[in-house]
């Protein structure tokens, strides 16, 4: 029994956290969040993460990667969620994973080294609106040029390469081949998303795309769940710290039992749920039969928890927690994207029920 991170994994997380402490402190985070006009990611922070070979984590060694597992990627996602890091990690990591899983040798050789190094930016396009997110629901077809709309695509405008979910499986679409991006005025300005309209774009299928598409979306669910756990844990800590610091009636508000119980409720919702994303990632790596169900449960439970915890965090902070200047709303807005992206908790619960054979 060793449901724990290895020393290497702990070291990886520590390195990422150290970087984030240095380059993603709240002041900088707010600066990125408040950038004029459309939301943008933090290019400097992303470059530093690429430098640290984060995008290489799951890329095969033959293509310049570290050939690690989804659990390794997920614990990084937790750290990024904890810091609300404004970087295009999610789409990029999934694009690389898609090609590693389903690409031809040529496709792998062409893209993986550059994705691993961060030289090119990749992303994935799953959503088609009205909560159609998953392989069985994709209507767009790559045949004879890709046309149609994909929604909530992470950083599509900046991406050099989009892995698009299509009825035939997965297709590669390169920048400049016939699509337009419209940045959504999304609540979460740390992870901008676009509506992408394909107009006969040149699309190259991944040979194994059909087979690996649901592996890819399961991985996406696990990564989103990891982000949600990281963010929720941060919010609990933030609320506990504030309660110890803030004084009213001549004592820290942490002395008030009513608030204490509310903080306990937040912690009880969050801490025991960590294992859901761990197991979803671990199952993806080692217990493939259990992976789809585990991914659905992790996504449903943790993204719902995260959003609720951010609401509780506002209440625990009083007025200041409702202001733009405070960190809470940045987390709440990430929680909103985590909640909606890839489908709501309700959708994933119905899916978990199907997968359980109920």
């Amino acid at each position: 029994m060793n449901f724990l991170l290895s020393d290497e994994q702990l070291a990886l997380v520590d390195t990422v956290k150290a970087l984030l402490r240095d380059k993603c402190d709240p002041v900088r985070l707010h600066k990125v969040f408040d950038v004029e006009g459309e939301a943008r990611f933090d290019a400097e922070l992303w470059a530093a993460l690429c430098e640290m070979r984060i995008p290489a984590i799951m890329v095969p060694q033959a293509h310049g990667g570290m050939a690690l597992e989804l659990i390794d990627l997920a614990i990084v996602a937790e750290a990024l969620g904890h810091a609300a890091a404004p970087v295009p990690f999610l789409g990029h990591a999934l694009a690389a994973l898609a090609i590693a899983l389903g690409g031809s040798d040529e496709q792998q050789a062409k893209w993986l080294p550059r994705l691993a190094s961060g030289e090119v930016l990749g992303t994935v396009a799953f959503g088609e609106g009205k909560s159609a997110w998953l392989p069985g629901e994709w209507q767009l077809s790559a045949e004879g040029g890709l046309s149609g709309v994909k929604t909530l695509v992470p950083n599509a405008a900046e991406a050099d390469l989009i892995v698009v979910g299509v009825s035939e499986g997965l297709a590669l679409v390169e920048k400049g081949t016939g699509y337009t991006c419209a940045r959504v005025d999304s609540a979460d300005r740390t992870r901008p998303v676009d509506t992408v309209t394909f107009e006969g774009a040149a699309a190259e299928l991944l040979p194994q795309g059909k087979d690996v598409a649901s592996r890819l979306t399961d991985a996406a669910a696990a990564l989103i769940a990891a982000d949600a756990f990281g963010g929720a844990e941060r919010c609990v800590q933030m609320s506990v710290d504030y309660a110890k610091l803030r004084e009213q009636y001549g004592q820290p508000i942490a002395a008030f039992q009513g608030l204490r119980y509310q903080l306990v409720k937040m912690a009880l919702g969050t801490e025991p749920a960590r294992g859901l994303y761990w197991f979803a990632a671990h199952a993806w790596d080692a217990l493939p039969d259990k992976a789809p169900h585990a991914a659905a449960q992790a996504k449903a439970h943790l993204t719902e928890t995260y959003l609720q915890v951010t609401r509780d965090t506002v209440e625990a902070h009083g007025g200041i927690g409702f202001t733009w200047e405070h960190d809470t709303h940045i987390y709440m807005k990430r929680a909103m994207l985590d909640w909606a992206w890839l489908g709501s908790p309700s959708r994933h619960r119905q899916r978990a029920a199907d997968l359980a054979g109920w």
Partner: protein
Amino acid sequence: MELGFGAEYDAFRQEVRDFIAAHWPPADGNLKSRDNVRAFVEAAIGRGYMHRSIPRRFGGSEQQPDIGKAEVIREELSRARAPSDRIPGNGLVVPTLLEWGTEEQKQRFIAPTLRGDIIWAQGFSEPGAGSDLAALRTRAELSPDGSKWIVNGQKIWTTGAHFATHMFLLVRSEPDAPKHAGISYLLIDIRQPGVTVRPLVQMTRQKEFNEVFFDNAETPADMLVGERGKGWNVTRSTLKHERSGIAAMTWPLSMFRDLVKLAKEVERDGQSAIKDVRVREELAAIEGELLSIVYSTYRSVSLDVHGQEGETFTTMRKLYMTELAGRMGKLARDILEDDFTDMGGARLKWIERFMISLSMSIAGGTSNIQRNIIAERVLGLPRDRVQGAGA
């Protein structure tokens, strides 16, 4: 049981209707014209329909108290979407001045306030004094010649300070007195160099509140309301002046109507979301709470109209509505699904409402303070040793 106001008010209601029909909408059709609104309000005051509890010499219509009539007037004005007698800015200062103000203060401030020529902001909360209001630290010192107060410090969560002309505020005027005893209630013109208003942006991007900084701001010595060092008593009467009328149900009812509309409009799995058993059930559950508010308000108003005791809902209302607003916000989220994050889209209002339900749990006394008050005043539990209601 009678859910209208009964035959005795029918004639009065007809009078009010006739009056409104004759004056609103205005002849030129411009519903937003300030002159039109002012003319309507003045005519209504003349008829005794507005500012009924305020003496005529201060600009009111000085009517005998009749809560039934007051409710009829409010209902009819609301039905016709005519201007109400809501005072621009924070009108709570008016009952306070009527109770505690000097004759000169009343003369000087009440009528212009009713007309909207003077607009008030409330200066109570401070960064270190939220639910524990008496911890405030903004100080006022009398100038050596005794002619004016010099104010220094900071207020926060000040609604509408960016369009207000004046503020009523609590200051610490007796630094050596015990916590509650050193506080005075002052009036001050905030359009002066010593006062800086800085909007606080909310997570919704809206700017409803402000921080207000006082840096040697001045106000004449006679702008003290009530006795020096007795401001705490003055405030407590201000906090009491909230009404329990039917108008208080307006926003939850309208939010619920919008929610039903949303559920009908949004498509889910090939049909209207309102056809989904989960949405139907939650909507019906929410409606059950909404109806609880409606009937409890009927009962409160009835008790009020008939001068009977036993009213408890007014004390519970804010917490009840706050929780209900959160529940409605969450159902809207569940209906919106993918659109839940798009603040540039057609559903922005629902995203704002999802967030604003939280602000409700904070503004004007947090939900926990409401719980403390309910525990003491409704359940009759012994006073909380530290956070006692109204402490």
